[in-house]
């Protein structure tokens, strides 16, 4: 498996083509295993019914995740990324609910299964890592108790001593020293980075084949981020798990992911390989997102650019393209404000992308940006 490359994607936006040619696919086997999918989401629609309004958090989203593939889901806050993650796991709490769609995990549709059935799948076949390590662990239970619970819930036959041994192993696996002793500590005795490593250990405790990581490094400081990310990289390789990495940090996507989907106002507006999106962002929103990533070399050029305007109100979506009012291409164009763009598969310089933009074809064929 390829080691984690701690490089910045921003360095290669200008003259990316040669460099990209040398970059191997991060998961060589991911591209090949076309037949069997780890996860397939079809027409998923999630709404929050707030009485006075219905917020459409996820609107008709479909995507596939191959075995050991790493998919980055990128978008602004409030674009529906977390709602997507919770919907897949069936963990939405009222007033949120999945209104329609299928989630096919290892070949079977898990949408609409009973809580009993779902709970036997969660943690064993598909696991979750959340953003904030401070609140992801129960403050009044020991680290050991919480780790052992993750193991025990799917292995009721294991005895206490075996559970404890396995928990120590898991802590060691995520590089926590003196694991035996630290098992009886409480979360507040761990640092943020350590807690996130515990969260990773808990998620991987039962060797799930699909891992959903919702902003796993966002709450950490930069050096800890890099450590946690490289740990996740190593463990995901070892466990041969497929990952959906939800983030707003495109730098992390470039380091970690094979493919990327850009989420805007509840829809995946552009899905492609990582190489494609960094070289030829086809949807104007993808392009704008890329431009907003801080680049030390460009700091002299003045303040960071921002995307003008705000994401649309998900309970009162505009007609036409939801991005139109903020779009550098379609802001003035009638077609963008009137007609919803359909999904088109376009050919870029490095593979296909499926894009929801009226001008996808022209933009994919145009000059590199």
């Amino acid at each position, binding site marked *: 498996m390829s080691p984690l490359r701690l490089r910045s994607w921003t360095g290669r936006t200008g003259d990316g083509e040669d460099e990209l040619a040398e970059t191997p696919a991060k998961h060589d086997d991911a591209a090949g295993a076309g037949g069997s999918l780890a996860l397939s989401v079809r027409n998923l629609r999630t709404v929050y019914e707030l009485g006075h309004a219905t917020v459409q958090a996820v609107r008709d989203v479909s995507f596939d995740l191959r075995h050991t593939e790493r998919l980055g889901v990128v978008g602004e806050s409030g674009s529906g990324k977390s709602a997507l993650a919770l919907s897949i*796991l069936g*963990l939405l709490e009222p007033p949120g609910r999945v209104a329609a769609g299928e989630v096919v995990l290892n070949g079977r549709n898990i949408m609409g299964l009973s809580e009993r059935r779902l709970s*036997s799948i969660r*943690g064993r076949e598909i696991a*979750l890592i959340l*953003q904030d390590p401070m*609140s992801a662990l129960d403050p*009044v239970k020991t680290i050991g108790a919480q780790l052992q*619970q993750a193991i025990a*819930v799917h292995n009721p036959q294991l005895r206490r001593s075996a559970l404890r041994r396995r928990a120590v192993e898991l802590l060691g696996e995520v590089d926590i020293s003196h694991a035996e002793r630290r098992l009886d500590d409480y979360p507040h005795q761990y640092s943020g980075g350590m807690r996130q490593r515990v969260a990773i250990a808990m998620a991987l405790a039962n060797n799930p084949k699909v891992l959903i990581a919702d902003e796993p490094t966002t709450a950490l400081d930069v050096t800890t981020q890099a450590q946690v990310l490289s740990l996740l990289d190593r463990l995901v390789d070892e466990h041969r798990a497929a990952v959906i990495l939800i983030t707003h940090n495109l730098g992390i996507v470039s380091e970690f992911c094979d493919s990327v989907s850009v989420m805007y106002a509840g829809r995946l507006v552009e899905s492609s390989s990582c190489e494609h999106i960094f070289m030829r962002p086809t949807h104007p929103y993808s392009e704008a997102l890329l431009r907003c990533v801080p680049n030390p070399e460009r700091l002299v050029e003045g303040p960071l650019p921002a995307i003008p305007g705000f994401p649309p109100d998900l309970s009162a979506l505009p007609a036409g393209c939801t991005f139109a009012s903020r779009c550098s291409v379609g802001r003035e164009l009638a077609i963008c404000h009137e007609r919803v763009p359909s999904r088109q598969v376009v050919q870029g310089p490095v593979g296909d992308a499926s894009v929801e933009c009226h001008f996808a074809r022209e933009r994919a064929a145009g000059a590199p940006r």
Partner: protein
Amino acid sequence: MSGVVSRRLLGSLGAIFGASIIAFVIMRVLPGNPARLILGPLAPRSTVHALNAQLGLYKPIYVQYWRYISHFFQGQWGYSYSEGAQVRTLIGERVPATIELALFAFLITMLASVGLALLVTYRRRPIADRIVRGIAYLGFGTPPFFVSLILLIVFFSILKILPGPEGRLGAQVLPPPAVTHLYTVDALLAGEPGKFLEALEHLVLPGLALGMANFAFLVRLLRANLLEVSREPFITVARGKGLRRWTAFRRHALPNAFLPTLTAGGLVLGEFLAGSVLVEKVFNWPGVGSLVYEAILKQDFSVVQTFVLLSAVMFVLVNLAVDLLYAVIDPRVRVKSVTTA
């Protein structure tokens, strides 16, 4: 651990000291000469003077205070002239009734508030939530003696399903053989289920009346805590591990939400034990509260003074117990105490 204990103990002693000062000052500020009250209006002035001297009322104020406080802790609570008995004997006779009522009220208050708070937060039914919140507001804003009267009118006068204000047992019923002096427990110990039910029936209405306001307080607190905790990411994480929703709720939301409720529960129990003068009066409950009610009317200050300090001590002890329990349950408190000790 020892750090927490000593700090809490110091705080408790401070609270008791404050209460004793208040009780002492009230006694000295209220109009009326104790000796004159004891001896009556016809006693000669010289006798009053002699009794005042005997009561130590001409000594310096700090000597009087010391006498009062040391006598209190020695159990010398003085003589009740209106009842013609030692205050200690009087209170000792009345305490079991108050304790039984307090424990019963505490039990139903806790059960009802935990149950209803769970129901509305786990099930997330907006209508049930609105009903519970409505009851809570009503209970919070209605004084206990008024609740008592309403309960009596509804369940005794109109529905005739529960006994009226006749104390702990019906008029013709003898108390069960005394072991704990709590009639329900004693009846069970003596194997008299009929008497147990009789005692229980008599507890229901005063228990409800006493518990209502605190039920409102607790259910609102617990509901808010549970809602907050159930939105915590660690609940989602627990379910993500494969715990069912209810299991995650029970193992992670409940213990966390219960911590603040424990403190509140201590306050409530302390309040119940300190006695409810008005509820006991309405139901003719032969507890400490109704004793104090009579004593106030008769200006029998040695009873009132003892009651004030005694209820302060009760209140402080219960809360001390809760604080110590807290330190055992909540690892964050425990570790803090290790580092400060």
